[in-house]
């Protein structure tokens, strides 16, 4: 373990000096040489620490900048995603609105035909004296067209949103399954 250090040279130099101190038979000259070596190593170590700290701080700054840029991109992406979802919603609403109008129009035509062909003769027979009854009936049908359209629109929109949510849930479950499979593969 001791050999697996990025500061192995420095540790070796320190050990050498410690071993020297354990001796008690060194001369003044040897002591001076050892001290000189220690000072040189210490000086080199300080230079290294200075430069490594400086570079490390600078690269940390670079990392922070990259993170900020990434965060901004994520925010922009989320905005675009929201805009896209809104547009899709609007398009779905418009599509469903058109469909509902068509359905209600056909129902109204059907009711008109039914009232003209089937109900009109019966009403004419039943209310011979009152010509307004048939007219009121037609008016009621005409008045009901708009709320009918709104009801059909709301119902179809609700159904479409439910289908959309179900689709999203299924998609999420599928993605979850895929990511857990990947994790399992990594562990294996």
């Amino acid at each position, binding site marked *: 373990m001791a050999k697996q250090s*990025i500061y192995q040279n420095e540790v070796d130099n320190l050990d050498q000096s410690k071993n020297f101190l354990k001796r008690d038979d060194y001369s003044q000259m040897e002591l001076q040489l050892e001290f000189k070596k220690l000072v040189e190593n210490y000086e080199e170590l300080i230079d*290294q620490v200075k*430069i*490594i700290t400086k570079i490390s701080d*600078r*690269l940390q700054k*670079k990392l922070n900048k990259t993170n900020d840029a990434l965060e901004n991109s994520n925010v922009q992406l989320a905005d675009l995603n929201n805009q896209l979802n809104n547009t899709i919603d609007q398009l779905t609403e418009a599509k469903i609105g058109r469909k509902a109008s068509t359905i209600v129009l056909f129902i109204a035509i059907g009711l008109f035909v039914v009232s003209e062909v089937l109900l009109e003769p019966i009403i004419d027979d039943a209310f011979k004296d009152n010509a307004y009854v048939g007219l009121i009936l037609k008016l009621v049908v005409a008045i009901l067209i708009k709320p009918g359209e709104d009801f059909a629109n709301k119902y179809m929109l609700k159904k479409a949103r439910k289908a959309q949510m179900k689709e999203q849930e299924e998609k999420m479950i599928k993605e979850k399954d895929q990511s857990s499979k990947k994790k399992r593969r990594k562990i294996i």
Partner: protein
Amino acid sequence: MDNLIIDGTRQTPEINFDSETGILKLEGRSIPENTFEFFTPVLNWLDEYANSAPGKTIAKINLEYFNTSSSKYILEILKKLKVLLNDGKEVLVEWYYEEDDEEMMETGEDYEDVSGLPFKIISFEEE
């Protein structure tokens, strides 16, 4: 002497040290989980290279990002190149950085100051 070729990964740089041409390429990202394990063969190769190095050595360093322990090993690599220079060999360090990467440019300048090696700091356009 064999060349030293190590493929780059998402965490380790690509290394292509050619003992015949004297071109030593180091490029990519250096954030190994174990820097000691990654760089020890590189330093050992440079020790051997010092005995048979051609007249001119060009170190082409193009790093996108490196961690603190890698910065120590880059310093060690430069120290070994300094030994070559002191032995009378020609040594040039080409330090590449993306044109808007101010941090990497300044880092190259710092290494130039501390190593005492001739440096050429070269910017390149982002792909």
